C-alpha cells in the first residue's frame, strides 16, 4: 500500500505534523510526501530519518519536492517537538545580529568602539557569515560617512549579508543624508526580523 501526503501550501511545522499523523495511523509501506518549499523538504526528511523511515529518493518536479520513502516499522520518537521543525533551516542560514550601539559593551567608549570595529572585521573573516545585520539607535553611526566600519560592512553586504539601518534613528541623529551603506528600514521590518529569524544575537 502506498500513502500520498500533499503538504503544498502548508507552512512548517505542519508538513511534519501531517507526516507524523500518517505514520502513526499506519497501514502503508510506501510513502510519498510532497512539499512546495525547501524548508519543509528538509524538515520532513529530517523527521523521517529520525523516525527511522528509509528515504529512497527525493525528486524535484517543477517547484515541488517529492520525498519517496519505504516504511518498515516507524519508530515513534518519544520527545517529538514540532518546534524542532521550524520554517527556516538554521544549519544553512547565518545568524541575524542586532547592533544597537556603535560600541560593544560599557566601561570605555573608546575601547567599545575599537572592539566593535574589530568584531565587524572578524565577521568578514568567518566562514559562516551572518545573514542579516540590523542597526538601531547609536548603531546606525557605523553605517554613516566617516566611520571606519563601513569597509567591513560593505564586505559583508557584498558577501550576501542583508544590512538594514533604522531610518528613525538616522533622522534623530541628523545622519540620514550621511548614510553610506545599507538599506534605510523601519521598525516593522526590524521587528519582523527579530521575531521571525531563526537566530538573533544582540551585540
Amino acid at each position: 500500500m502506498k500513502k500520498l501526503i500533499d503538504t503544498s501550501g502548508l507552512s512548517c511545522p505542519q508538513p511534519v505534523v501531517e507526516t507524523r499523523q500518517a505514520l502513526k495511523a499506519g497501514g502503508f509501506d510506501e510513502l510519498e510526501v510532497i512539499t512546495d518549499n525547501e524548508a519543509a523538504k528538509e524538515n520532513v526528511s529530517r523527521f523521517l530519518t529520525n523516525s527511522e523511515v528509509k528515504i529512497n529518493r527525493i525528486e524535484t518536479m517543477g517547484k515541488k519536492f517529492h520525498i519517496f520513502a519505504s516504511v518498515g516499522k516507524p519508530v515513534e520518537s518519544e520527545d517529538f517537538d514540532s518546534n524542532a521543525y521550524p520554517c527556516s533551516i538554521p544549519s544553512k542560514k547565518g545568524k541575524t545580529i542586532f547592533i544597537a550601539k556603535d560600541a560593544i559593551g560599557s566601561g570605555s567608549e573608546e575601547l567599545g568602539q575599537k572592539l566593535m570595529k574589530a568584531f565587524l572585521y572578524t565577521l568578514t573573516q568567518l566562514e559562516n557569515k551572518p545573514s542579516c545585520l540590523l542597526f538601531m539607535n547609536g548603531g546606525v553611526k557605523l553605517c554613516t560617512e566617516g566611520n571606519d566600519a563601513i569597509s567591513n560592512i560593505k564586505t559583508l553586504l557584498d558577501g550576501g549579508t542583508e544590512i538594514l539601518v533604522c531610518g528613525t534613528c538616522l533622522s534623530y541623529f541628523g545622519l540620514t543624508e550621511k548614510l553610506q551603506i545599507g538599506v534605510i528600514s523601519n521598525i516593522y521590518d526590524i521587528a519582523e526580523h527579530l521575531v521571525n529569524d531563526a537566530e538573533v544575537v544582540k551585540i
Partner: protein
Amino acid sequence: MNDLVITFPSSNHAIAAEYICKSAGMEMELIPTPREISSNCGFSLLIYRNDPKKIRQILEKEDIPFAKIFIIQQPNGEKYYEEIN
C-alpha cells in the same frame, strides 16, 4: 608589497598606533590578533600593502613600542604569517 600585521605589548599601544598610522594616511584595520600568531586576546594592526621598514620608523619616531611585525604570505592561497626582524 604584502599586507602586514603588527602586534603590541598591550591593547592601549595598538590603539595609539592606530591613531598614528591613520593620521599618516595608511590603509589599515585594527583587528583581533590572529589566532595563528597568538592565542591571547589582543588588538593588532593589519596594514595593507606597506613597507615594514616604514612602519617601524614611524612607530619608533612616535615612541610607540610594538612586539612583532609579520608579513602575510599567501603563496598557494594558504595564508601564513612570516615574522620579520
